[in-house]
């Protein structure tokens, strides 16, 4: 009797089960090995690498213009922000800046991506915790944002809209009108979201006090994004290291010091409000001008190391490029938010029940391709 080379029951009488890699609540091919005492979790061990595609190594053979595409496949729900990080890093190496128009378009797109990502997360969280209706409502609103993306970027999920120096095309003439319509709709729907899921007593009982992560632990595990901010770590890159003119827009950083699943839920819900407010500030103020700074056909970065961090929907994404002066990077390293966030799952789940692990995983908002890369 062996399960992946180990006994089902250990010498201490702990029961070992495998959750995943194709479990309905793991949002992809995440494989968690769980040591159980009765129903209480003793230890959780994530097994990674099921969809490793060696994006970092692949990028070493691609030009600086081309390697950006691969990052849309990392965290596919915030594909746009990943592309933005790479474009910004290359721009940093070239010592150029995107045109003012491109910068505003980028912020708008990034916030739309964040909204759609959080909406998908909201639906999936509801689904994981036994509420099916949120899933349909979330996808309905997300579809409106996806249509905007399709109209302007040319694709729905892997947008690939960023190029070093700006954006690929100009925005669609309908863009502003459609975004305003969607924002009006989303503001109404956010109210509905709170009514249907947040105030529900079953949901609150399943999330409040579950999966506690203290501020010190969050810092030591490198947990960032909404997950970190729910533990009281002020880690919003948009505030700390403003890029693309995020310092010019008014928005609040959402913090909570409760550190449980409900806090993570609330931080994301409040972040949607902030995203809407950022979009509303900028949508009427898109400056005129070029949407792209002229760059050479073959981009060559000077010798050196370049690092750029951005705030994706899940946390801090860092892009580190080592250049030896050639037309393709010598080495690329991505610091992906999900990898660090996942590392805290063992700490959070110890002592909890199996059902709580689902709530913890749902509110961590894991995207598996971002962990494996």
């Amino acid at each position, binding site marked *: 009797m062996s399960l992946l080379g180990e006994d089902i029951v250990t010498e201490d009488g702990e029961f070992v089960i495998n959750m995943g890699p194709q479990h309905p609540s793991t949002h992809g091919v995440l494989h968690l090995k769980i040591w159980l005492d009765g129903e209480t979790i003793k230890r959780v061990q994530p097994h990674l690498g099921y969809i490793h595609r060696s994006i970092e190594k692949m990028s070493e053979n691609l030009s600086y213009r081309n390697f950006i595409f691969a990052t849309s496949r990392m965290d596919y729900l915030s594909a746009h922000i990943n592309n933005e990080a790479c474009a910004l890093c290359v721009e940093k190496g070239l010592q150029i800046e995107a045109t003012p128009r491109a910068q505003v378009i980028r912020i708008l797109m990034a916030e739309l991506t964040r909204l759609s990502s959080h909406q998908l997360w909201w639906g999936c969280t509801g689904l994981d915790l036994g509420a099916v*209706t949120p899933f349909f409502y979330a996808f309905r609103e997300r579809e409106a944002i996806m249509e905007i993306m399709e109209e*302007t970027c040319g694709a729905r999920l892997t947008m690939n809209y960023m190029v070093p120096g700006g954006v690929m095309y100009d925005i669609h003439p309908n863009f502003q009108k459609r975004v305003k319509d969607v924002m009006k709709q989303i503001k109404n729907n956010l109210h509905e979201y709170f009514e249907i899921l947040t105030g529900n007593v079953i949901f*609150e009982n399943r999330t409040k006090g579950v999966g506690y992560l203290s501020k010190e632990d969050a810092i030591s595990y490198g947990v960032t994004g909404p997950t970190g901010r729910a533990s009281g770590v*002020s880690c919003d890159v948009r505030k700390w290291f403003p890029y693309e003119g995020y310092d010019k827009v008014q928005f609040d950083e959402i913090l*909570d010091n409760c550190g449980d699943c409900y806090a993570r839920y609330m931080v994301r819900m409040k972040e949607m409000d902030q995203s809407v407010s950022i979009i509303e500030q900028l949508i009427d103020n898109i400056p005129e001008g070029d949407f792209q700074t002229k760059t050479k056909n073959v981009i060559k970065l000077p010798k050196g190391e370049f690092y750029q961090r951005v705030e994706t929907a899940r946390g801090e994404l860092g892009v580190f490029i080592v250049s030896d002066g050639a037309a393709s990077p010598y080495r690329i390293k991505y610091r992906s938010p999900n990898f660090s966030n996942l590392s805290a799952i063992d700490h959070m789940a110890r002592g909890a029940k199996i059902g709580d692990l689902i709530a913890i995983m749902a509110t961590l908002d894991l995207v598996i391709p971002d962990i494996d890369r």
Partner: protein
Amino acid sequence: MEKLTNRYVQINRDPMTFGEKIYIPAIAKGLSITLSHIFRKKATVSYPEQKRPFSPVYRGLHILNRDEEGRERCTACGLCALACPAEAITMEAAERKPGEEHLYREEKYAAKYEINMLRCIFCGYCEEACPKDAVYLSETLMPSNYTRQSFIYKKEDLLIPEHKKQDDK
């Protein structure tokens, strides 16, 4: 909590009231919301009968373009193959012979032009790289098929059929 940035919002957490603690109001509220959605406009489209139009910049299936006189625009320069991050495009160049001026626009043309649609990621870099506006991504989806071989699109599959041009006249 330590105040780290200049502006932040603290989430307040009030305990549940008695009315919230008993399950029945929560269930009734949820049901009333879902029931109210019955009378709203449908969000779905019955797909094969109705189709949403694609935007002009949509990156779908590739098309090899012809010029106004129906001649092939592609000169097999290889820039699209070079720009392709997925290495999906292969081509072979050939020289135009006398008497073929009505077929090919310039002296060099692509004798073989293949795109492996299973490798293609529809990023649109080939369209951006093409100096002759020969290859562009159309507003159609790639059809599914049974064999891997059928996903390697030859030049004949990609070119706009010539009779279309005659219809225009």
